[in-house]
């Protein structure tokens, strides 16, 4: 047994955590694409991908090989450095924010929390900040492509993301007020007292905040019904029209990774994170050991999976917004509602204390 110092253990465990989370996230991204195609297919009364492997389960692998082997086209008129940097920015920002997410109950080994990469006391702000940096990926890709449709797509997307970022940030303030902290771990702990009754969406009366967050998050990730930046009937494919091969795949992965991040944040902030909906009722059954550590992860994954299914369901159901409706909805409805929600939450908290 080699003796390691505390710092070396911390370093090794952190690298291990990053590797595991990265692999799981990327696999989840690939299979979310398959899930979306399957579920959309079923909702539209067709099969979806079913040829590669049993039930089409190897389809993501085939897609990956296809995207790797395709020719990487570089149009002549592009701004070369920015054209290459844009997908990297988009994917990097999408993957960084997952590092703040606590995906299990607090379990420390040698002083290192096993189920969260970084426990930072302004974790929520970091997620918001990294998301707002991600806009550059989309903005620059459209501009550097030197293509009118790409530029329109990225202008739409930038305007939409800036507008909805306000509503998104303000919808979370009620939760922060209740928890009294910006650390995601603290926010989860503040909802873990009585199971589902103390989750922010039920017991915390943050249901208005939750719906504002949900709608703003759909707009932030450019998903339908707010997918104007890539409206195929108007803009060919929007900001990634000129991209091919792995660069296109990076935008695609960034979109789905963002979806997963948004689902994780919704779970953490409004649905009690990794805590069980039955509270401590089942604690005496598995007081210690492996199941005790792994059961919270199961609940977390289950909640995130439900959010992703909701995303797909919404995509199959709702038609796209018109551009002026989109802006009006964000600025005239969601933003004032979010402010009223903050005021009401603050007043209730002030009267209670």
């Amino acid at each position, binding site marked *: 047994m080699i003796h390691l110092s505390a710092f070396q253990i911390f370093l090794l465990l952190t690298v291990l955590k990053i590797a595991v989370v990265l692999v799981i996230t990327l696999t989840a991204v690939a299979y979310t694409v398959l899930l979306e195609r399957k579920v959309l297919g079923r909702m539209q009364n067709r099969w979806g991908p079913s040829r590669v492997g049993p039930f089409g389960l190897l389809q993501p692998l085939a897609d990956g090989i296809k995207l790797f082997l395709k020719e990487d086209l570089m149009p002549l008129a592009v701004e070369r450095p920015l054209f290459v940097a844009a997908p990297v920015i988009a994917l990097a920002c999408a993957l960084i924010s997952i590092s703040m997410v606590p995906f299990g109950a607090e379990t420390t080994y040698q002083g290192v929390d096993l189920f969260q990469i970084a426990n930072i006391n302004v974790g929520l702000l970091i997620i918001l900040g990294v998301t707002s940096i991600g*806009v550059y990926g989309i903005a620059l890709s459209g501009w550097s492509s030197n293509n009118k449709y790409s530029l329109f797509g990225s202008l739409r997307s930038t305007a939409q993301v800036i507008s909805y970022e306000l509503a998104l940030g303000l919808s979370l303030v009620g939760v922060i007020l209740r928890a009294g902290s910006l650390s995601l771990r603290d926010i989860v702990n503040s909802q873990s007292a009585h199971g589902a009754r103390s989750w922010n969406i039920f017991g915390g009366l943050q249901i208005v905040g939750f719906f504002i967050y949900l709608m703003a998050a759909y707009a932030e990730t450019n998903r339908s019904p707010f997918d104007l930046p890539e409206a195929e009937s108007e803009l060919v494919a929007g900001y990634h029209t000129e991209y091919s091969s792995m660069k296109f795949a990076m935008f695609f992965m960034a979109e789905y990774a963002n979806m997963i991040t948004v689902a994780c944040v919704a779970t953490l902030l409004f649905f009690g994170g990794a805590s069980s909906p039955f509270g401590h009722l089942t604690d005496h059954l598995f007081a210690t050991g492996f199941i005790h550590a792994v059961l919270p992860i199961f609940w977390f994954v289950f909640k995130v999976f439900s959010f992703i299914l909701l995303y797909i369901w919404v995509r199959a159901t709702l038609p796209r917004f018109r551009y002026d409706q989109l802006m009006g909805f964000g600025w005239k409805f969601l933003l004032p509602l979010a402010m009223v929600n903050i005021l009401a939450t603050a007043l209730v908290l002030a009267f209670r204390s």
Partner: protein
Amino acid sequence: MQIALFTIFGLLAVIAALNMLLQRHPINSALSLVVVMMSLAVLYWSLGAEFLAAAQIIVYAGAVMVLFVFVVMLLNAGEEQRTKGSKIASIAGFPGAAAIFCLLTFIFLKNRAALGNTQLSGLYNGAESNLTRIAHALFTNLLLPFEVTSVLVLVAILGAVVLARKEL
């Protein structure tokens, strides 16, 4: 560790600032400014001001500079013409900038005791978090300046609306 961070990101900030001045295309300049702001955020972080770092990224890099880039893209501004520059600028500019730099350094070094100092060696380890202390200061001792600033921002927004209405 902190020294290494300071060296890397301090150098990065200076290089990006120079790059901002030397680039001819507005978008490249704007992006260099983003790099400057993010390096500054890392410096704040290494001084133990994590809230300030996060606010710097959200407000400046994430909102203000996105608007800059947006406007540059919308107006489709082309590359600048490189001129020789006026004589006065090169004669008075460089010594003037050097003089201001020297003056500021002198003042900061002289009043070092009054400015207070912070440790480069790690985060703030007090009983309450950094954030709580900032909030406490803003809403008790500094309440009046805080509110006056918010009125000032409101005036600026109204001014922008009035100016834009005249154009429409």
